[in-house]
């Protein structure tokens, strides 16, 4: 992953290097707005990032920060009433410029999504096999029998025990972890090059969560997929991701490699997130970020985090800071990037994970 360019003027373009392969996914100035009684609400606000094939980008943020809306917009399943702008270029094709018909062809074949709650993501009145076979046949010219064989293959791939029997099962006959494996299997039927994961482990027990994370890591290496992994859980992001983008109020406020974000967070919001995390052996109460996330329909002109920020100064309220470079891959949308107020007791990546 490389960078997020700030909006004009003179984006702080990070040089990916000429030798770097063409990115798998390049999202530029993505913006999603919903109509509400208070006017247009900007759920995703000029989000830009790049994802290389085989890498995992963890998108971290609290609920309402626009993480899910961003994934849905990339996939094209945002509510019809939403207003969308920007580009999302997958393998050289701008998904947002495609016709609805063409996007349907891309969904589930080149780009797939894994949903948060496996209890409700599957259609309850069709068997696992029916749902898998229908997905396979939607994208491949196969007989039912061939599709069933492929369904068996993907169920084996996601390590479901006795997959033949699961094909006949209805979702309600499976446990939560099993269902999430089925959901993942369904996303993988066409070997997508990009997987969008929307908090895929949040609804699961901790032990099941760890196993699903291991599975996704393994699959990513095995199939060479790029993954955008949305979560509110720093530990989960640190475990699975190569890079992390922190979202706040619809914008990416900081991004960098996992180590950079975890060891030397530069945005006060990121620091707040880290401090809110309980580390093993920690005695004192974790410190929550004071205040509440802003109303996305009534965003202030400046930094959206300013009202909650201990370091905010007048400029922060007035104009939105551009991205500032910390290291080649580490950027934060904060005036105080260089202020060396880096947490001395910086959380160790290993500790968090």
């Amino acid at each position, binding site marked *: 992953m490389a960078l997020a360019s700030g909006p004009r003027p003179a984006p702080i373009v990070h040089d990916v290097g000429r030798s770097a392969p063409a990115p798998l996914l390049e999202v530029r100035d993505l913006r999603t707005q919903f109509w509400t009684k208070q006017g247009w609400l900007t759920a995703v606000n000029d989000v830009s990032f790049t994802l290389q094939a085989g890498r995992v980008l963890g998108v971290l943020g609290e609920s309402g920060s626009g993480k899910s809306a961003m994934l849905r917009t990339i996939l094209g399943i945002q509510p019809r009433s939403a207003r969308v702008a920007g580009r999302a270029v997958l393998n050289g094709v701008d998904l947002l410029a495609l016709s609805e018909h063409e996007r349907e062809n891309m969904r*589930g074949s080149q780009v*797939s999504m894994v949903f948060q709650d496996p209890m*409700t*993501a599957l259609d309850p009145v069709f068997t696992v096999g029916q749902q898998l076979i229908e*997905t396979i046949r*939607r994208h491949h010219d196969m007989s039912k029998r061939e599709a069933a064989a492929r369904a068996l293959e993907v169920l084996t791939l996601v390590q479901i025990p006795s997959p033949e029997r699961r094909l006949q099962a209805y979702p309600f006959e499976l446990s939560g972890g099993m269902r999430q494996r089925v959901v993942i299997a369904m*996303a993988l039927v066409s070997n997508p090059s990009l997987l969008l994961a929307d908090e895929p482990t949040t609804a699961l027990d901790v032990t099941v969560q760890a196993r699903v994370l291991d599975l996704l890591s393994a699959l990513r290496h095995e199939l060479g997929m790029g993954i955008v992994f949305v979560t509110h859980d720093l530990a989960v992001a640190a475990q699975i991701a190569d890079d992390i983008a922190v979202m706040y109020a619809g914008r990416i406020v900081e991004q960098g490699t996992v180590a950079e974000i975890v060891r030397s967070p530069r945005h006060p919001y990121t620091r707040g997130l880290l401090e809110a995390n309980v580390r093993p052996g920690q005695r004192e109460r974790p410190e929550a970020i004071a205040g509440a996330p802003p109303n996305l329909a009534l965003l202030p002109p400046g930094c959206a985090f300013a009202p909650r920020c201990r370091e905010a100064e007048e400029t922060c309220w007035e104009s939105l800071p551009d991205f500032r470079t910390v290291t080649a891959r580490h950027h934060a949308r904060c005036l105080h990037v260089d202020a060396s107020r880096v947490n001395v007791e910086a959380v160790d990546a290993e500790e968090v994970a």
Partner: protein
Amino acid sequence: MLLIIARRLGMAVPTLLGVSVLIWLLLSILPGDPLAFLLPQDASPADRERLASEMGLDRPLPVRYVSWLGDVVRGDFGYSPFRRRDVSELIGTAWKNTAVLAGVSAAFGLSLGIAAGTAAGVYRNSIADRVVTGFAIVGLSVPSFWVAIVLLIVFSAQLKLLPAGGMADLSEGFGEYAKHLVMPVIAGSLITIAITARVTRASIVETFQADFVDMLRAKGLREWQVLMHVGKNAISPVLTTSGLQVGYLLGGSVLIETIYSWPGLGQLVFNAITARDLLVVQATTLVIAVIFVLLNLAVDILQVTFDPRQKRAA
């Protein structure tokens, strides 16, 4: 599945017994004299007692009930002194006529209601949705007998397009037969259309909000494929109300059958109540109760075939 059916049929027996007891009790409290219509004006008390004992009316209620029940179990519903026919024969003819009317009304009303409700649910807040929703409210609030009378005035009295009532025999030709059905079917299925459309719309709208719909779209399914999934998930409440609707229609609409002089169960029971023809009322009620029990069973079986989770509940 067979086990479920057997168990449900077993459970139906007490239901039917209860219905028969209730209807006996209600009819016995009902004011009015079942003999009044049978006796001449100047009948003496002795005549009256003789007739009462002929009909078994002098025996106490529980005894009469038990002996009636014994006859019914053997398939004998008794004899109607008013109509001078066996009750089973009366019900047999009326039932066939009502079944024709109810069948056509149900097919017409349910298909139109489901189609309109689906269109309204899929294209929510569109003009089509508003038309359907508006029609459904009107259909539910306007009494069917009023519609029946308006139809009569317009199509029969004014335009002279349709016969005012009665039922044609198939020997008179299919056209004539169908012509007699038009108005009773429209007036009788109005409520069915309205209820079915509303329930279908609500259920489709709700199902479209389910998480799995996002997933279906994320898999790249075409919109019509998504609709297939939504439809199968949304059908449960539609089946439940449809079962009730068909039940009401098969029970025979007293109002519609009386207005259009359709010789069905509704008219039969209406006349029987007016004349205190107790045996006919009791038998008809029992038949309607049986119809409801069977329909509910059919609906439950359909529910399970659409939604396997309900196997546990059944």
